[in-house]
Structures are given as C-alpha cells and as structure tokens.
C-alpha cells in the first residue's frame, strides 16, 4: 500500500512524510530535514556510534515497550515507521535543563572535542530506559559500539559509574 505516509515521532513530535526517500537514512533525515544536528556522522558503517539515537517501539505480541539504541547512519528512515525516535536534543538542553546523563558526562570531564558525546549520551540514556539501575557490566556492553578518540574513556565510565548497581544506587 504505497499511499500510506511515513509516520514517526521525533522527540515526541509527530512527523508525517508522504514521500519519504527509501535511500534516506535516519541520520540524514534528522540532520537535513529536521535540522537536529546533535546526531553526528562519524563513519557511516555502524562502527563509531556518533550517530546513536534511541528508537522506542511497542512489541505487538506482548504489548510491551522496547527502547533500543540504534545507529542512525544505517537505519533507513522508512524502517522506523510507527516508532518514536529520541535524539540528544530530546532529553535535555542548556536552555531548559540537562538530563543527568548529559550533566554527569560533562562534569566528569568526559567530553573533550565533543563529537562522540551525543552518541555516548544516547547509548547511556537508552540503557537507563531499559535498565534503570544497570550493572557495570551492562554499562560496558552498552558502549561497545561507541568510539571516542580524545578522552581515553576513563572519565566517561567514571561519570556513569554513578548510575550503576555497584555504585550503590539500587
């Protein structure tokens, strides 16, 4: 049925596109169409995680809600029909308030050049949405698809450790 428009939600706002380009990735759609440039292009092959966003969808069989961190550079925008996309702009801003995930990475000196930061923030945010008090192990797994060339990672993990079971947040 080719007359059905593409419908998705981005940061809670409904987006309806009656002629979406099947070749267009979610990343290009976010950056060029919606002008949400917090999500970055780092490699376009799913290896660096600079384009990480959260996709939320309802599992039709169980009716339960799933939150997934995905690579926007590899996700066709048409593949998120009926789903909700959350980008780094969707969880907090300096004008309103920062999300704890944003605040902690900044204050822990986990952002140097800042180009990988939104992706890492969204990996952490997605993890917290599915596992509010994750283990250190879960945290490390969540970042397997994120690269940072500046920090040496330690301060990022240090800042985010404060969310974990091991830190005593349980």
């Amino acid at each position, binding site marked *: 049925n080719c007359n059905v428009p593409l419908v998705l939600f981005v940061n809670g706002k409904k987006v309806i596109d009656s002629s979406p380009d099947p070749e267009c990735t979610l990343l290009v759609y976010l950056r060029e169409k919606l002008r949400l440039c917090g999500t970055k292009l780092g490699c376009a092959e799913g290896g660096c995680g600079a384009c990480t966003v959260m996709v939320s969808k309802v599992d039709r069989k169980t009716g339960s809600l799933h939150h997934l961190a995905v690579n926007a550079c590899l996700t066709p925008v048409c593949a998120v029909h009926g789903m909700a996309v959350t980008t780094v702009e969707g969880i907090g801003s300096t004008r309103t308030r920062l999300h704890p995930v944003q605040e902690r990475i900044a204050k822990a000196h986990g952002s140097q050049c800042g180009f990988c930061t939104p992706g890492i923030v969204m990996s952490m945010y997605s993890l917290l949405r599915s596992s509010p008090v994750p283990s250190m192990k879960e945290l490390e797994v969540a970042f*397997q698809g994120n690269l940072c060339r500046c920090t040496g990672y330690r301060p990022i993990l240090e800042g985010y450790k404060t969310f974990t079971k091991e830190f005593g947040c349980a």
Partner: protein
Amino acid sequence: DQPATDPIRRPQVHASAYKQVTGEAIYCDDIPKFANELYLAFVYSTKAHAKILSVDASEALKQEGVHRFFSADDLTEEQNKAGPVFHDEFVFVKDVVTTQGQIIGAIVADNQTIAQRAACQVKVTYEELQPVIVTLEDAIRLESFYPGFPRIIAKGDVEKALSEADVIIEGDCRMGGQEHFYLETQACLAVPKDSDEIEVISSTQHPTEIQHHVAQTLGIPASKVVSRVKRLGGGFGGKESRAAIVAIPVALAAHRMGRPVRCMLDRDEDMAVSGTRHPFYFHYKVGVSKDGKLLAGDFRAYNNAGHSMDLSFAVLERSMFHIQNAYRIPHLRVRGWVCRTNLPSNTAFRGFGGPQGMMAAETMIRHVARTLNRDYVELIELNMYREGDTTHYNQQIEGCNVGKCWSEVLQSADFAKRREAVEKFNEEHRWRKRGIHVVPTMFGIAFTVLHLNQSGALIHVYQDGTVLLTHGGTEMGQGLHTKMIQVAATALGIPFDRIHISETSTDKVPNTSATAASAGSDLNGTAVLNACLTIRERLEPIRKEFPDKDWNFWVSKAYFSRVSLSATGFYATPDLGYDFGTNSGKAFNYYTYGAACSEVEIDCLTGDHQVIRTDVVMDLGSSINPAIDIGQIEGGFMQGYGLFTLEEMVYSPQGQVFSRGPGMYKLPGFADIPGEFNVSLLTGAPNPRAVYSSKAVGEPPLFLASSIFFAIRDAIAAARKEEKLSDDFTLVSPATSSRIRTACQDKFVERFTKQQS
C-alpha cells in the same frame, strides 16, 4: 588563600562541555544550509602511480543537478600549487598521479548525493607507471628519498668512541603508521561575499594556512579571505596541513560560482586520502662500557613520507631530536632520510616523530640490557639524563625531572613487588603470561621551526563588563579555550563566566601558527596574558581612584573617560633557534617529563591481551587546569596504546588503502582501557618558562603507552622461555594479536609456518 572566583589551577569543566552533551555545540557541517548552497564531491585518482591520459566529465555533467566540474584546467600553474612548506603538491593533480586518493577534480552539484554519484561518473584513463613504492623497505632499496638527505645531528667522535667501547650492539626498530580518526572528518564551508571577499569556515588546526592557500589559488589578496574555526571534532595533527586539500577546492568553487559551497569527507574518503602518522624504520649501533654506560651511538632514521613532503622533514627532525629519549649518550650521531613513496602524504600526528624516535631509544636500551644480561631498569637509571647534562643537539637540560617521575612511578606502582608477582604468575601458567614494564619520556616543547613560536590575542571589554577574548589557537577538544579563559580571568581578576571565547578567526588575530606542537596554551596563554596586562594598565588609574568599586564600575568609568577597552597581545618564545649547520642554539624551550608503568596479560594461544594496570606520573609544572591535563594524559596515553598495539594501516602492494573505516581499523574502545588506571601529576615542580608556571601536555604522554608494548614483549618472552627460545626476537609495532600469537612460538605456530612454506 586563592579567592574562590579565581579559576587558575582549578579543575574547571571544559567551556563547551554543556553544549557538547546536548548536541547544541556547532561543528562545521552543523551550520545551517544557505538556500543557494551547493555541495562538492571529489574525483580521486584510483592508481598509485600513473600517467593521466584523459579526464572526461561529460557524462557526469549531464546529470540533473550537476553544475560544474573543476580540475587543473581551471587554474594557472601558479594557482594550482599547494603544500604546506614546499609547494610540491597540486590543488588538482594533472599529468601524473603519484598516489591513490590524489584529487583530480571536483564536481559541484545541488546536494551531496548528486555530487558524489556524479563524481563516480567522471572517467579517468591512466597509463600505469612503475615503480609503485609502498613500504619503507622498498623505498630504501630503491633509494627513493626526498632531496636534502641525510639530515644529520652529530656530537662528539662517534667512530672513535665506538672503537673504544667494550661491547657493540646493533639492531633495528620498525614502526607502523597511525590514522588520526578524529571523530569529525575534514570539512569546509565557503561563502563568497562582495568585492571578491570570501569566508572559509573549516575544521582546521591552522586557519592562517587555509587563508593563504585560498588567497593564492583564488588569486586574491589574503586580506580578502577570512578563515574561521569555531571548534574541531578532534585534530591530533591530521588537520594541521591536510585540511587544506578540502578547503582550497571548496573555496575555489564558491568563489568561481558565487554561491556557498560545502564538503565534508566521508570516513572512507578521509582515511584513504588524508595521510597518517609516519611509519619509521631505525637502525642503531651503540657502544657500551662493561658496566653498562652508553658511550656512543650511531642511528639511522627513515620515515615514509608518502607522495609529497608536507611536514615530513620536521617530523623526521623531531624523531632525531628524541632518538636518545632520556639517555645520555656522549658521542651520538643520527642521520635521517625522508622516503618518497606512492602513499597518501603522511603528516603530523600527536607526537610528531617524537614517539617514533623514542621507540628506537627504548628498543636499543633494552637490547643492550639483554646483551649485557642486565636488568633494564638498572641500565636506564645508570644512563638517565641528570640536571645540567647536554643533549646531542647541545642543549643543556635545566630542571631535569625525568628521574623524579621515574622513581615516583616505580614507587607508586609498587613495581618491585609486582614484578615478582608477575614472575610467579608466569611460573604457574603455561598459556597465559604476564609482563610488567616501566618507560620514561622526555618531550621537547617548541616548534622546531623557529618563526612558528609566536602567537597573538585580541581582547575586547564591553561596557557591561563582559569580555570577548580571541587568540590564535583553535579548539579541538584539548580545552585550550577553557585554559585561556582561566588565564584571562585570573589576570583581570574577574570570574570565569564573565569571559567568552567565540571562535578563532584570521580577521581577529592574523599570521598565527598552527595549533600544534603541544604549544597552544604556552604561546597563546602568554599572548592572552599580555593583552590582559594592557587592559589592566589602562584601568589602573581608575582602579586606584576607586579602590572600593568593582570591575563593572571601572570598565564603565573607563568607557566614559574615553579609554580604549580593546587590546592585542603578542608573544614570541625567547632565546630559541637551533641551527643544524653548527649544531648549536636552543631547539626547545623546556621539556615535559613523565614515566609510566604498565602490566599486561597475554593469551598465548590467541594473541589477545588485557592491560591490567597502568600508573603514570607526569611533570606538568603547575597545571593551569588539572582536570583537562589529566584528560590529555589519559587521552594521549590511549592513543599511544592504539599506536603500539591495535592500530594497523593495511595497504595493497599496489598502494591501495584497505583500512577505510572502523570495521577494518581497530582503535581503542571502552573495553580496552587499563583495568586500573592511575594518573598523577608531579608536585612542587613549577616551570619558570611558561605561562603561570605550567607545562605543555598534549603530545608528551602518548609515548608512555610503549610501556604496554614492552610489557607485552616481556610476556611473550616468558612464553618463549617455555619453549627454550631466546628473548632476542623482533616485535614490530604495533604488537597486534597476530604478531603476539606468532611470536609466542610453539608447536601450533610451527605447524602453521610449515604449511606456509
């Protein structure tokens, strides 16, 4: 007794951190599109060495949305010249290509998709030429060197001292290159203005160089080119000179077409065309006394420059300056060759030849220790520089803290006890082995090219008392702007948040040097300080008259008294100037010292390894911002870790770059950091030679990751001992899992090597 509002020496958070975590921070490609903007895509050579027979863009130009094709035909010979030091490159190559990935032309179209597709349709026919030189070994065999070889630094009578030595040790050291992998690739947006002006916004460490290149290619005065940089998503040297290969064509297209033009390289393009750290090959011959003193050394250094000179000579020179790392060798000669190959032009990378030179020194001293059957730790302590020693380039070392860092790290890492524990572990395990190792470092701070050691700043104080500051340095994540605000806030006696740095631009501070050589905060810091002092001087009479009033009052008073509230600041590092001809004059302003101890565990059956623990002690003088400096140490260390163990650029014998993305090229990830990572700064060691007694930090820690390389080597040696094999084996850097596995020779490796032969 430091006031709470005085930010100097405090762990102030990066000035852009809050914008970066929310995605509000703007990078080059985030700048909104102009309605009439066009996109540019490059046509690259696909051969490493070939004659161009024809370039046919007619098919591409027929596509809807394609506007124009630029090539060498659009420029005069003079305009087409490029290259940072020597103009031995072209904006658009013509006649003969000397590497794959060389820019032949550019398609300008409505958008990125159309431009890139059309660029693929430009037909280029070649006649392949021989030879295609890829490796250093080939280049050395064919004597493919850039002119001016060998570069020489020599002190003492090396031949005589060698003949008098008790033991002569000869060996070599080979190191691979390294892709920068700044998360933001090379990018540029050029906007034409009226009266031939052009604004070039790019991701570069060197806006001034972009300005001059663009002016030359466009045939307009530099005064009409404004080159701007807000921030970079990483640079690491890769955007010191190579940013120009993108910026010049983009500016040309914008200028000729009268419309804004943009281009941001895809990762595969960036990796294939923009060059890497220089691979190096060293040969050493050293003479040692019976008791282990280094008496004489004769080194040869070769680096793989690729198809153009770029900064390769300066890289080679820095490797030659650091060829002895932290060791006194009274008679020392080092000769260097820059090899011309058919690879993309290699360029600056954090360390700038230093890590490679120091790697040769550390390989050599361990070789000496093995030959003399001595503990390398003892040998290092015996030969380490002390206060007042003179280097082979005749610089006297003042404030020599390398020994302090060394003994402090041995102590804080509990080296002696853990070394025993490692030995015990190795006795108890056959297929897993551990190694623990210590390495010192000593990094010379200053550009080795004299005139680059200068900088400027411009400061405006507005009527509301807020300050807009700018200086020559660019912000690429190192927290330079943050430090500069700290310097200015302290100098002016106002809080951090009253001062803002918006960007770096050639119309605010002209003739700047690249943000490089770790010298960004030294140079710009003093320039900023000087600008602030000028403002302070002008406010002084008012301050005296109204001592109980505050900053805002003084500023307002000054304005109404018609006192200028804008000032420039300038700084040139004093008494520098090394001369190769006479081997005299000061090469460096001072040294940054450090030492690191790392413990690893390898899996002898797979070649996998883990870093169990690393301890670092660095001498950063009195740090301007310890949080940023520790971040630089950790970040630099992890890049070094990638260099020495994980990252390997793979090329085909025909010179094609195979490593074109994170899928093929493995840089350190979250899971690769040391299980325990302790970094400390040497205390009570203020540096009188830089702003607020601080020291440069960017590059020096990187080499310390070689402690992991040598710990791995120790672990391999322990595995080889099980098979009664000698510890005199070659381990080429990077120590990848395949190299680790094959060096752990055993019955399984034998089977494989038999099969191969």
